[in-house]
């Protein structure tokens, strides 16, 4: 019998413990102390390589703002939580930030999985959310306090399709994509748009984000002898794909998405004898920002979302300078913002998406990537 009693005691302790934590954390944002802001990025799991560097970009921005006196004299306090690119982890992380730390705003979800999980709750709690990289089209209907300074897949997929059809004159395209909210999203939009223009998708095959063997997909694509292979995939998949493509002697040219915008990939592609083009956001990513980031992370990568995360912090800080911390005023000010940041010109529409999302095309040649159009 005493086992039963012991069990009850433990349940009560943990339950009450949480209740107590809940109460203690209830200190509303005092008018003078530091302004608490949260960040939800994947620090472990599949997309950790991107998440950890985006976090560094946020840290640089926060340090710079605080050094320059913070917001109306109040310092910014950034609390980082791990979203793991998975819905349960992202929900727990965001809930802690919103309900225990009572943050004013959240910079994050990198993966659309994370953002789509906690954004609705944030809207209810009137917490401003600025996502630096979640590009899933369905996030546009999230709500009044949701913004993303990263173009929705709809833009990039459409731009790539038009560029391939009109400029590159491609008529038959094979698609190899990563099965993820980002990869599948872009693929769907690209295919619909490309078919509308009269092109033909000759072969399509997806692989999980963590896949390493693309030989069968490449062989299938090669057999369909397309003009171009369109590959919306994350950086690690691109490395393996390039290697295996060169091994298989793939002659068809490769058109990538912004997952390819990674200096390490350009170096690897140097003597693989592959013709690689890829679309990426028209980021006037100033070299100054790249130096700062590479110096902090000690890695050459400037992955998807890093410049956007840096800009997101500045947009939030500037908006708070004039609107203070009231969610509605803050949201309206952000919506009216026109900001030229390291990730390019930023203006928001009523859905919180970027109004203008122009892309550039870069070509990987002898170790570096140069803008083509």
């Amino acid at each position: 019998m005493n086992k039963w009693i012991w069990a009850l005691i433990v349940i009560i302790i943990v339950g009450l413990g949480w209740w107590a934590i809940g109460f203690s954390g209830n200190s509303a944002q005092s008018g003078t102390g530091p302004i608490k802001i949260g960040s939800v990025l994947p620090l472990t799991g599949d997309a950790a390589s991107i998440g950890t560097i985006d976090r560094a970009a946020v840290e640089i921005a926060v340090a710079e703002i605080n050094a320059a006196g913070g917001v109306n004299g109040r310092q910014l306090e950034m609390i980082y939580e791990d979203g793991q690119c998975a819905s349960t982890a992202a929900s727990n992380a965001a809930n802690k930030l919103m309900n225990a730390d009572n943050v004013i705003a959240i910079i994050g979800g990198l993966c659309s999985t994370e953002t789509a999980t906690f954004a609705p709750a944030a809207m209810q709690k009137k917490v401003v959310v600025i996502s630096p990289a979640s590009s899933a089209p369905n996030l546009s209907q999230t709500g009044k306090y949701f913004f993303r300074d990263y173009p929705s897949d709809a833009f990039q997929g459409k731009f790539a399709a038009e560029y391939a059809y009109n400029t590159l004159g491609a008529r038959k395209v094979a698609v190899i994509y990563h099965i993820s909210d980002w990869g599948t999203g872009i693929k769907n939009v690209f295919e619909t748009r490309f078919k509308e223009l009269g092109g033909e998708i000759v072969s399509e095959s997806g692989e999980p984000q963590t896949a390493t063997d693309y030989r069968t997909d490449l062989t299938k694509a090669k057999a369909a002898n397309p003009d171009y292979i369109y590959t919306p995939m994350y950086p690690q998949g691109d490395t393996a794909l390039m290697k295996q493509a060169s091994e298989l002697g793939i002659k068809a040219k490769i058109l990538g998405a912004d997952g390819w915008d990674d200096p390490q990939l350009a170096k690897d592609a140097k003597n693989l004898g592959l013709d690689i083009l890829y679309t990426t956001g028209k980021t006037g990513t100033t070299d100054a920002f790249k130096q700062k980031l590479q110096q902090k992370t000690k890695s050459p990568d400037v992955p998807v979302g890093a410049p956007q995360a840096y800009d997101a912090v500045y947009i939030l800080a500037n908006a708070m300078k004039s609107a203070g911390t009231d969610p509605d005023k803050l949201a309206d000010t952000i919506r009216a913002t026109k900001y030229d940041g390291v990730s390019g010109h930023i203006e928001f529409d009523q859905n919180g998406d970027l109004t203008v999302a122009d892309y550039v095309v870069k070509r990987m040649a002898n170790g570096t990537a140069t803008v083509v159009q």
Partner: protein
Amino acid sequence: MDAVPQIVLNIVIAGGIYSLAALGFNVLYSTTRFFDLGYGAYALVGGYAVLCLYKWVGINLELSLLLGVLIAGLTGFLTEKIVYRALRARRASNTVLLIASLGVFTLGQAALAIFFSSQFQSLSRDIASQRLFSIESGVITATQLLILTAAFAVMGILVVVWRYTKFGRAVRAIADDEEVAQTVGIDSERVIGAVYFIGAAVGGIAGIAVGFDMGLQPLGMTILLEAVIAAVVGGIGNMYGSVLGGFLLALVENIGAWQFGGEWKFAFAFAVLILFLLYRPQGILPK
């Protein structure tokens, strides 16, 4: 269909790696009759050990390969000594051993993710300098040929050791019945320890092969599933069976991926496994 030669080569390449993975698992399972899920972790340790020695410390390739295999073997040996021996001494049930091995797998994989980060890392230093051999329109690289030869070499060594050496006879005796083997004076603890070292070392070779051919990630489930499916389908306790199972699995996966797309690769592999488990659990080649 000029793609056929390349598909055949894809199957051959993947088959090589799956066979290596299956051989290691077969060594462990056929001797101890125990499904060690930790095998996935031993294979990863092999790959990451070489990554650390060859790419970070910069030791020459051959030495770091050898050390990598030894470290993987040692991991298996120590795990058996620390975790499984105590459980077996207590006559723990298969369920207990299985759950403990699931713990070894989860712990091993997470520890590697912490030390080496969960990023994808390739073992081959300069990607492009592979010497290529083209057969018809299909292409196979030097590394892949090396992996293939390693697979058959390991199979050959294991067959010879298992059949013609005193150690091999002792192992087969334990495989049949551990108590009987002990009564005949075989120090089963020491032999099982050695078997674990060999099995984990072969698993390490498979991990290294994956590291060179495709790349490393702290996800041991893939290589574990391939090893188990190939070993079971091929025939538990039969070394030739493991290699046959490896190539058969590669065939089914590639055909499935070819017809239906890569994402269904695993579903096909498992469908084959379940069919065999139901209708021919002892696998194609008998023990």
